[in-house]
């Protein structure tokens, strides 16, 4: 089981695998590096590199049609790229688990990141996505565990925001 000294990122990957998540879709981001690397090294899952985040929304809908579970990993800027495709979640009630590494919030030094970063919550909520924020390492696993239930048991779309309070702001 998860050791006390293990990184939260490894605990998170193990949690997703214990819950039968087998499709890991992503546009690369530093905040998801460990999850992406572990999915690439895991022969029991499909590690799906996307060209744009909306592909991942559609991929997860297809996974669900086939009885499989997936997760979509992206940076906050990718949320905007997903909006119309999230019609699948709201209209089709496809379960949708998204983990977003935030930019354009706490301590951000790149002004280009603010417009989308600050719009993530209202924009996702406008499309019917439930948004949960995580600010401390010991909140990651319980929050994603709750999200897994909300998504795969209750049929929702849930975005867990890994904030810059958790991840730290990128230095410029």
């Amino acid at each position, binding site marked *: 089981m998860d050791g006390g000294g293990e990184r939260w990122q490894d605990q998170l990957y193990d949690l997703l695998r214990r819950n039968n998540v087998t499709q890991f879709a992503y546009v690369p981001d530093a905040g998801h590096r460990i999850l992406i690397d572990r999915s690439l090294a895991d022969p029991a899952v499909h590690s799906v590199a996307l*060209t744009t985040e909306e592909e991942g929304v*559609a991929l997860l809908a*297809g996974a669900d*049609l*086939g009885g499989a579970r997936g997760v979509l990993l992206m940076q906050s800027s990718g949320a905007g790229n997903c909006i119309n495709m999230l019609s*699948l979640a709201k*209209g*089709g009630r496809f379960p949708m688990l998204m983990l977003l590494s935030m930019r354009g919030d706490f301590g951000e030094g790149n002004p280009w990141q603010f417009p989308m970063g600050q719009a993530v919550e209202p924009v996702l909520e406008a499309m019917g996505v439930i948004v949960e924020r995580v600010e401390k390492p010991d909140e990651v696993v319980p929050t994603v565990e709750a999200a897994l239930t909300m998504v795969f048991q209750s049929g929702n779309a849930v975005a867990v925001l890994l904030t810059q309070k958790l991840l730290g702001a990128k230095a410029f």
Partner: protein
Amino acid sequence: MAMRYPQGVDVAAAVAAGFVLDRCEAVPALIGKPDDFLIVTGLAGTARDIAALTHDSAQIYTMAGAMGGAVMIGLGLALARPDKRVLVATGDGEILMNVGALATVAILNPANFSILVVDNGHYGETGWQKSHTSLGVDLEKIAVGSGIKRTRTIAAESELAEGARLLREGNGTAFVVLRVAPAEPPAYKRNFDPAVCRNRFRAALLGNG
């Protein structure tokens, strides 16, 4: 039955460019026995092609929105069910909205996955405006450039058998462009409720799980 051309479409230009096949005959000929596939369709034309062919069966998932998503829904399904053959049937306009998905498919190259683009060179649902494929864009070349190895463009009846074989066999993802006349797709009223269609599809494939 004779093809029905919408008003205002430049049929002579389409014929000169090789858009001549009747989709109402060519699509069924390419697919053969539809029960051999799980089928995801794009919007409008291809949704009607496949709904008419299968009587809107529970083995198809047709879209009427979320444009640009058909190929990726098919990929997620193909990865989830390597025991089944998955076919995406979509239009030129729908696939043009997200050609990046072809790159995503190519690097995984699932052997149980085929993509059929019914290319009429037009946005038939919105007033028959010309699409990029009427103006020089070649979807097969985009697929090749994306890294998909097994590709074909079918523009004549004599080529249909080869296209049909490609969709059903092989050790990597197949990509077939079916060039058709800019004429009306079959008239068919399918179920438009995306949640009902999801449940129907899952119940047929997965049982009550």
